[in-house]
């Protein structure tokens, strides 16, 4: 292969580094804002360095919107949703991939169509359902509607197709029950795909906004995005608190992302990129 001229090489690197700065700088700015008093972020010329006001912003934020409770809500909702949804979607994906049964193709086609339907269409009837059973402002109202996530079922089906039928047959011949096969043979083999789907579902629910915004009505039930939006909607915005809030919603995910880069990228992209 030909060599690239040093000039071109330098330009290429400058281009990439400018891109990296644009991508990453807002995170740094968020951190600067979170650790400085509210006025500091709007100083001219700006202060580019982290301050020592972080703890105060945190305690003020907790007094203001109960951020510890909100974090707990988000964590509980997201984890419950992820486990429940991953289990249900994996079981369905397994059936669609590995069994012949009446109605299989019709039901699967319906799921594929549902992927294309914007979920905003369901907001109003969902609101009516949950108000009828008196479940507005509850965690189950946030968790349940998306538990059967068509895209996750689709992904699991695609991945399950790689399991050799002979493996399942051998287990049946050995007298293993169908549930035993699913939990003890299929799930362990599917671990990488399961991790990707779990990350996808986790990120969906952690960042989910419009439905929780509609269905959660009191501050003690808010999730992180809803609490953040309520902070911005206040008549007097304390930017130190706001930035502390955004940091708290972003930092845990960022740490996981940096630890599990490959799984994260393929998870968020919904398995469209194979590693």
């Amino acid at each position, binding site marked *: 292969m030909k060599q690239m001229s040093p000039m071109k090489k330098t330009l290429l690197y400058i281009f990439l580094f400018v891109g990296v700065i644009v991508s990453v700088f807002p995170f740094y700015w968020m951190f600067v804002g979170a650790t400085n008093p509210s006025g500091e972020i709007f100083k001219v010329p700006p202060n580019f360095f982290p301050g020592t006001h972080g703890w105060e912003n945190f305690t003020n934020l907790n007094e203001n919107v109960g951020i510890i409770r909100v974090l707990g809500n988000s964590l509980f909702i997201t984890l419950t949703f992820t486990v429940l949804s991953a289990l249900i979607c994996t079981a369905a994906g397994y059936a669609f991939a590995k069994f012949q049964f009446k109605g299989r193709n019709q039901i699967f086609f319906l799921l594929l169509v549902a992927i294309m339907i914007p979920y905003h269409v369901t907001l109003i009837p969902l609101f009516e359902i949950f108000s009828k059973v008196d479940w507005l402002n509850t965690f189950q109202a946030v968790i349940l509607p998306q538990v059967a996530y068509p895209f996750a079922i689709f992904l699991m089906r695609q991945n399950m197709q790689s399991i050799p039928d002979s493996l399942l047959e051998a287990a049946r011949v050995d007298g293993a029950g169908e549930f035993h096969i699913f939990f003890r043979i299929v799930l362990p083999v599917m671990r990488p795909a399961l991790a990707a789907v779990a990350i996808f579902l986790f990120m969906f629910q952690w960042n989910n906004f419009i439905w929780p915004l509609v269905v959660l009505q009191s501050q003690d039930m808010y999730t992180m995005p809803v609490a953040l939006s309520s902070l911005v909607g206040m008549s007097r915005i304390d930017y130190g608190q706001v930035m502390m809030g955004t940091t708290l919603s972003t930092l845990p*995910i960022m740490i996981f992302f940096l630890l599990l880069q490959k799984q994260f990228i393929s998870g968020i992209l919904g398995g469209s990129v194979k590693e």
Partner: protein
Amino acid sequence: MSQSNVQGGSQVKAKEKRKRPKKWITPKTVPYIFILPAVLFFLIFTVYPVISSLLLSFQTRVGSDYEFVFLENYTRLFQDPLFYKSLGNTFLILIIQVPIQLFLAVVIAVALNSQFVKMKSFFRVAFFMPAITALVASSIIFMIMLDENYGLVNYLLSIVGVEPIAWLSDPFWAKVALMVAITWRWTGYNMVIFLAGLQNIPGSLYEAAEMDGASKLRQFFYITIPQLKPIFLFTFVLSTIGTLQLFDEPYILTEGGPNNSTLTITLYLYENGFRYFDFGYASAIAYVLVLIIGVLSWAQMKWAGEDK
């Protein structure tokens, strides 16, 4: 091997015969048991709402009851200037922002794919970083950076002598601000998809072109772009569907303002549904959205299929 298998098989059959009366988990019923939870949830929380929403779109609330009004919501919709405005805003973003974002994503992916670039995984992670933030969080950060009087962006522009820009309070610049925030959030996401696509292009294609004396630019347009076509289609469909459902960013960044210049279809749906509680009208908006997404996706698929 095969002998012992057969033996094992007959043993199991004998076992099954003994147990059969109690057994409801058979190879015939088991797939239904596995799909049952998913299907139940899907029926209650997706199929029923989708149908119910369609019916609602033909009704309007009179007192505490709903009354069937046939197409009244839809005729009202087609005379509603705000609806046209939201439609126009959404499509403007679609036409301008999506191509810019995909172009940037391809260019970065190609640069990163160059054999001369080291630290590839560092770059990949850095560019992907924005895609892990909540849309609400990224919108808040941009709201603060784009503040007219004290924001960082205007400060940096003032250094090079640009007058302060009213990013969030001028109808034109508010649209630009919205597009900037969306582009920041999604470019890296698309870039990683393109990068994976690039890595699947066989190197022999480039070697052959090299031998024929084709320039790098020619190789880009005659090999890279055509080879990436399925990826372009995929990212384009994803971005289209995403843009048509744009809600979090305008809700936080501009609340649809100023003067409705950043009002999107879903924002208008939300306002009618949950600010004015006009469920019938909001459902009609939702169904127009379904129709638009359906038609556009179909057209994009068809356009892609024709060249194959």
